[in-house]
């Protein structure tokens, strides 16, 4: 049944395409448009809306005047008209409308003030003008992370820092501020006076604030839990919003040409050079799409031998990728192991290097391997977008799993006095080194390269190397990596979010300098929407990784000999002590909320809600399909009737004027339609 319907629709469409490509119908198109299309109810309605003279529709008043697509003069007329009408309507109604107007104005003012408070708008504008929207998306993402970290820092300050400062006066006396062994080096290593400072977990102790339900450990736990839940909520929300958009455009993602054509031009571009680039970019993308279409055809025609060869090649290449990944994991393992062995008296440079060995290894692996993956993907004979995604997925996997492996090994060699501090220190080093790497990469690699290319642009070197391209996905990966470190280290190094705010601030200016001063616009630009979904998806992955790590860590290991949880069997001892001190009904309620029975009900409820959502979605999709088909039917019916009408009109006019010469052409046209329209041909014949 459905199949037949579809065939029918295709048939209709075929007619329309044929008839529109012929010059004959073009001519008649113009003809009947002037005659009857203007009188159709729908176009009358449309014209009434555009003319703006009939402002009596209800929707008119609720829409601000500036949101009407008409020129200023017409807006003014419309407003006068509205004012006139306002005199006619009652006092109450006009008061309500003016109230609405006032509210809207206040809302707009608020929005403007708020958006004015967002920093760096001018910079964004400049970057957008020179590099397009894609690069701006990176900086917007950076700003988002900055605010996220600021929020984290405020929570930490409120729940952990301020109570500690207020109630634990003796803490500062316990720890001497400086020591004779301390040096600047400690800032980089996170040892010495930095280890004793509030940066690390060990600093916080049960102080004088020691109620059963309000003490330092509980506040500490509360702060961390707040941050994790809040960031989970925010990241999921942003991912879902973006995902909805891509899901809507996803439909035919690989060949969404009309999107590229209608929304292709970036009107922000001012630089003629960038405009030229954009032209060539759009051209390349359109050509690539057409080629991809051909590629798909080629894929469907591949012979068995070719398939076998290709699969063989892909297996080998994937094996190479796997070997590379394993190799880098092994290197990280050995580096970690080596850096954990206590060695006596080394030169300070060596000890610094040894402390940083795992960080250096991870950073180098993360820097080199994505480029190799990029090269490998080119041999696999996938379509271009698949290649890009494949490289990205492999790089994400590398980044997150190298971090994961590192965490795992750090746990296994955990036999220290205060292992929490040691763990926090590792995170601290990763964090600092990541920043140093970014700094050195910008000023000792990218900048000299740009200078060299600028100084003698004709030399062979300059032509081969060229300027650095700003690769958005890899830069975003770096940001995500740094955020993961912050989340994982949060529990053991509570000041990481605060440091992260500073770091992101510096990174912003470094990257701005790199982009504006040293980079050439990339020849491949990225679509904002899809890439920002990817950014947030990566962020979500990294957040999940850190939450799993943290929870595993907290549940599995006994707290060490320092910090707020010293002496407890598990971290959650403090909460159970608090719950036990509550009154009976409250305790029972909490016990029920944490029991399996409640979890089961929750899961059941979720399943029911999900099922109803899914079925509603399916029903909507069916309805959309049916409506589309109906639209096609209606429009072809309309065209058919209008054509009949116009031929009839012509015929009538011809009999009136009795001119015979153009009759042959119109006659053939009429008979052509006569064949397809038997039921209507009888009255037509009578009229002639």
């Amino acid at each position, binding site marked *: 049944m459905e199949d037949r319907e579809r065939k029918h629709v295709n048939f209709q469409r075929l007619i329309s395409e044929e008839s*529109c490509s012929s010059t004959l119908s073009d001519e008649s198109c113009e003809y009947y448009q002037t005659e009857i299309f203007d009188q159709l109810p729908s176009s009358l309605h449309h014209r009434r809306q555009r003319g703006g003279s009939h402002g009596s529709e209800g929707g008119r008043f609720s829409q601000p005047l500036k949101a009407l697509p008409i020129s200023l003069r017409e807006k003014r007329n419309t407003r006068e008209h509205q004012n006139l009408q306002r005199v006619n309507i009652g006092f109450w109604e006009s008061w309500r409308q003016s109230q609405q107007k006032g509210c809207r104005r206040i809302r707009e003012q608020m929005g403007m003030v708020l958006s004015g408070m967002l920093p760096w708008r001018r910079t964004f504008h400049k970057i957008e003008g020179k590099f397009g929207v894609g690069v701006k998306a990176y900086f917007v993402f950076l700003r988002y992370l900055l605010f996220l970290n600021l929020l984290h820092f405020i929570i930490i300050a409120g729940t952990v820092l301020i109570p500690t400062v207020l109630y634990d006066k003796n803490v500062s006396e316990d720890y001497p501020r400086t020591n004779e062994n301390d040096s600047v080096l400690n800032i980089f290593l996170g040892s010495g006076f930095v280890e004793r400072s509030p940066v690390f977990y060990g600093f916080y102790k049960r102080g004088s604030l020691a109620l059963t339900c309000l003490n330092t450990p509980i506040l500490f736990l509360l702060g961390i839990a707040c941050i994790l839940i809040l960031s989970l909520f925010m990241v999921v929300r942003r991912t879902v919003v973006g995902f909805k958009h891509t899901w809507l455009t996803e439909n035919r993602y690989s060949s969404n040409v009309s999107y590229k054509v209608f929304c292709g031009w970036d009107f922000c571009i001012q630089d003629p050079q960038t405009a030229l680039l954009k032209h060539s970019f759009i051209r390349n993308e*359109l050509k690539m799409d057409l080629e991809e279409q051909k590629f798909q055809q080629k894929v469907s025609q591949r012979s068995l031998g070719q398939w076998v060869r290709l699969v063989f090649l892909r297996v080998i290449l994937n094996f190479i990728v796997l070997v590379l990944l394993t190799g880098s994991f092994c290197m990280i393992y050995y580096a970690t192991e080596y850096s954990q062995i206590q060695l006596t008296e080394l030169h300070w440079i060596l000890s610094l290097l040894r402390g940083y060995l795992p960080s250096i290894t991870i950073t180098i692996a993360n820097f080199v391997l994505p480029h190799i993956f990029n090269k490998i993907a080119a041999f696999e004979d996938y379509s271009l977008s698949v290649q890009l995604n494949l490289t990205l997925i492999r790089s994400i996997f590398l980044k997150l799993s190298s971090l994961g492996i590192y965490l795992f090994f750090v746990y296994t060699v955990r036999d220290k006095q205060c292992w929490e501090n040691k763990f926090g220190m590792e995170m601290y080093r990763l964090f600092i080194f990541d920043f140093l790497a970014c700094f050195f990469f910008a000023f000792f690699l990218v900048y000299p390269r740009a200078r060299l290319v600028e100084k003698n642009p004709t030399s062979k070197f300059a032509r081969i190397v060229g300027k650095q391209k700003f690769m958005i996905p890899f830069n975003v990966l770096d940001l995500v990596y740094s955020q993961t470190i912050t989340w994982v280290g949060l529990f053991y190094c509570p000041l990481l979010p605060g440091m992260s705010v500073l770091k992101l601030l510096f990174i912003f200016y470094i990257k701005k300098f790199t982009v504006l001063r040293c980079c050439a616009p990339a020849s491949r630009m990225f679509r904002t929407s899809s890439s920002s979904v990817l950014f947030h998806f990566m962020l979500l992955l990294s957040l999940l990784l850190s939450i799993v790590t943290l929870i595993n860590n907290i549940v599995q290991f006994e707290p060490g000999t320092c910090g707020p949880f010293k002496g407890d069997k598990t971290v959650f001892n403090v909460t159970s002590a608090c719950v036990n001190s509550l009154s009976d009904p409250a305790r029972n309620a909490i016990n029920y909320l944490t029991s399996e029975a409640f979890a089961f009900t929750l899961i059941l409820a979720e399943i029911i809600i999900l099922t109803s959502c899914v079925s509603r979605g399916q029903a909507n999709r069916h309805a959309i399909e049916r409506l589309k088909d109906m639209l096609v039917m209606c429009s072809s019916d309309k065209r058919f009737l209008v054509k009949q009408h116009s031929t009839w009109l012509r015929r009538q006019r011809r009999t009136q004027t009795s001119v015979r010469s153009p009759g042959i052409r119109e006659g053939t046209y009429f008979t052509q339609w006569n064949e397809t329209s038997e039921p209507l041909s009888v009255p037509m014949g009578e009229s002639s």
Partner: protein
Amino acid sequence: MGTTASQLPKELLSEYQELTFLTKQEILLAHKRFSELAGKEDRHHPNPRVPMSKILMLPELKSNPFRERICQVFSTSDVKDGSLSFEDFLDLLSAFSDSATLEIKSHYAFRIFDFDDDGTLDSSDLEKLVNCLTGDTDDTRLTAEEMRQLISNILEESDIDKDGTVNLSEFQHVISRSPDFVSSFKIVL
């Protein structure tokens, strides 16, 4: 330069603020730029029009392939020469401003892309549009075969009622599915 603020009466300024998506600063800046363009000879004219050739010299429009169409769409001139009065100029900036709605932006985008002003995008409009996008010289244009394939792809996708042209509602349907549009359809002075 300090006189520019006094040239715009206060009530006019607040009226513009109400009828466009622009802020006070943006309107003042627009006025300053517009009077610079208008030059000395027209300063005493109550409602000067700036010819299209001068508007096209603005750096914000200079490298835009649709600049002439933009002028024509926003011009209220009776002779259809694409010249803009100050209010037309404000209309232009309002439609391209940060806070304009998707509805407005897509409406004007449609009119800009509708090269022959007949209310629908037919295949000749689409061909001109694609040529504007890829650059309109012999070596940057797509080949005839590619163009044909491309246009049939576009119509296949967005021509919902299959009448061989893309009308405003079909166009807005495509635009509404592309979240980047609002951020890229933007000209800020």
